[in-house]
């Protein structure tokens, strides 16, 4: 589904990713952990080309994202992105946020798009908020709308960039619940998060990154109970 080979990313002279190799297969849930500045978010953002890669290849759904013949807008609809800061469109209602992609990118008719939008809002438990503006929603509700907005494109994979880090603790659960459900439905997911509970319950694999490289990867059971690399051990000690 997603194949990354020898990916390098520099910001000016600063090397943020120093040779990442990663294969993510259909239906797999991958959790990426690591200290801040380790390149987790950058890696995620390289997958849908929100960041231009410096060298290496990224192949999403069989298409090289750097290939001139690849329509990057279509790749982005196949790999939906959920942001830490939600980034809902404040001038549009919840329903309009969700239907914008189907209407303008998928060229769906308005009734079809609204039907899909309402289904997805119901799926994330916000059917009654269809006509509410984002400013009137809690953080957890906003993030669930953001998930519905991405799902509205019917993506083959979902990328989550610290989706619960900006939330009050009591609101984290409702967002994780939606994500768990997605994982159980077989969505391919790449999740940058420090939520160990989520990783244990849903992840097929946990990747630990530090200083721009993948230090260790394993099943959640193995990596949490028996981390091999000293940097992984140190990090897990700190967050537990």
């Amino acid at each position: 589904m997603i194949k990354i080979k020898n990916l390098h990313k520099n910001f000016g002279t600063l090397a943020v990713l120093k040779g990442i190799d990663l294969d993510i297969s259909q239906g797999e849930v991958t959790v990426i952990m690591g200290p801040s500045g380790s390149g987790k978010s950058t890696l995620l953002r390289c997958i849908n080309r929100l960041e231009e890669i410096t060298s290496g290849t990224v192949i999403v759904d069989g298409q090289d994202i750097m290939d001139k013949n690849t329509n990057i807008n279509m790749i982005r609809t196949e790999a939906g992105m959920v942001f830490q800061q939600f980034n809902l469109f404040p001038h549009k209602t919840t329903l309009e946020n969700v239907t914008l992609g189907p209407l303008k990118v998928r060229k769906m008719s308005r009734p079809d798009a609204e039907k899909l939008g309402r289904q997805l809002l119901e799926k994330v438990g916000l059917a009654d908020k269809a006509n509410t503006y984002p400013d009137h929603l809690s953080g957890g509700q906003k993030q669930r709308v953001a998930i519905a907005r991405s799902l509205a494109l019917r993506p083959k994979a979902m990328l989550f960039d610290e989706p619960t880090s900006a939330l009050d603790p009591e609101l984290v659960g409702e967002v994780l619940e939606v994500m768990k459900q997605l994982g159980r439905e077989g969505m391919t997911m790449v999740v940058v998060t420090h939520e160990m509970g989520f990783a244990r319950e849903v992840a097929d694999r946990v990747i630990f990154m530090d200083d721009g490289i993948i230090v260790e990867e394993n099943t959640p059971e193995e990596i949490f109970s028996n981390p091999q690399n000293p940097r992984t051990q140190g990090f897990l000690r700190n967050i537990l």
Partner: protein
Amino acid sequence: MLLVGMKLTILITICGLVVGFALGALTGLLKISRNIVFRKLAGVYIESIRGTPIMVQVMFIYFGLPMALGMRIHPMVAGIVAIAVNSGAYIAEIVRGAFQSIDTGQTEAGRSIGLTHFQTMYYIIWPQALKRMIPPLGNQFIISLKDTSLLVVVGVGELTRTGQEIIAGNFRAFEVWLTVALMYLVMTLSLSQLLNYFEKKMDINK
């Protein structure tokens, strides 16, 4: 007679600002485009207009340009062009500022659902930026309205010019200038009210 002048003032202001807004919006977007040539061109326009007095611009357009081009230009046209070109430079900076004040996360979210760069600008950034532009635009509109009084120098029969002509006949400077001032005030206050109305209308959080 003053009402005729007032009508002309309104006409010049509206035409000048419609063209000025289009010019400003275009230039403002060029100023933040990825193409360095566009950015430089926009920069030269903005700086040269902001850096010279509007009185000089008016005289240059009415007396200077026709000489260089070997053609006559109607004073009304010169007036409208002057207001448009002048306000366009300031509006460009207002547009640029409003666009740049929108969080980059909005662009990223738009692009990440597959919208093109243009669609993201049109559906996501522009509506939010427009709302933030209204207060500074209001300022600029009022300044431009009052700037039309400078067109006396090229003989456009707008409100100030009309006032001068009346005084030349009856010498009642106090009454006439007071009336002229009040008429400008009526126009600027109406403009403020109109912009207030738009601002309220765009506020979705009421």
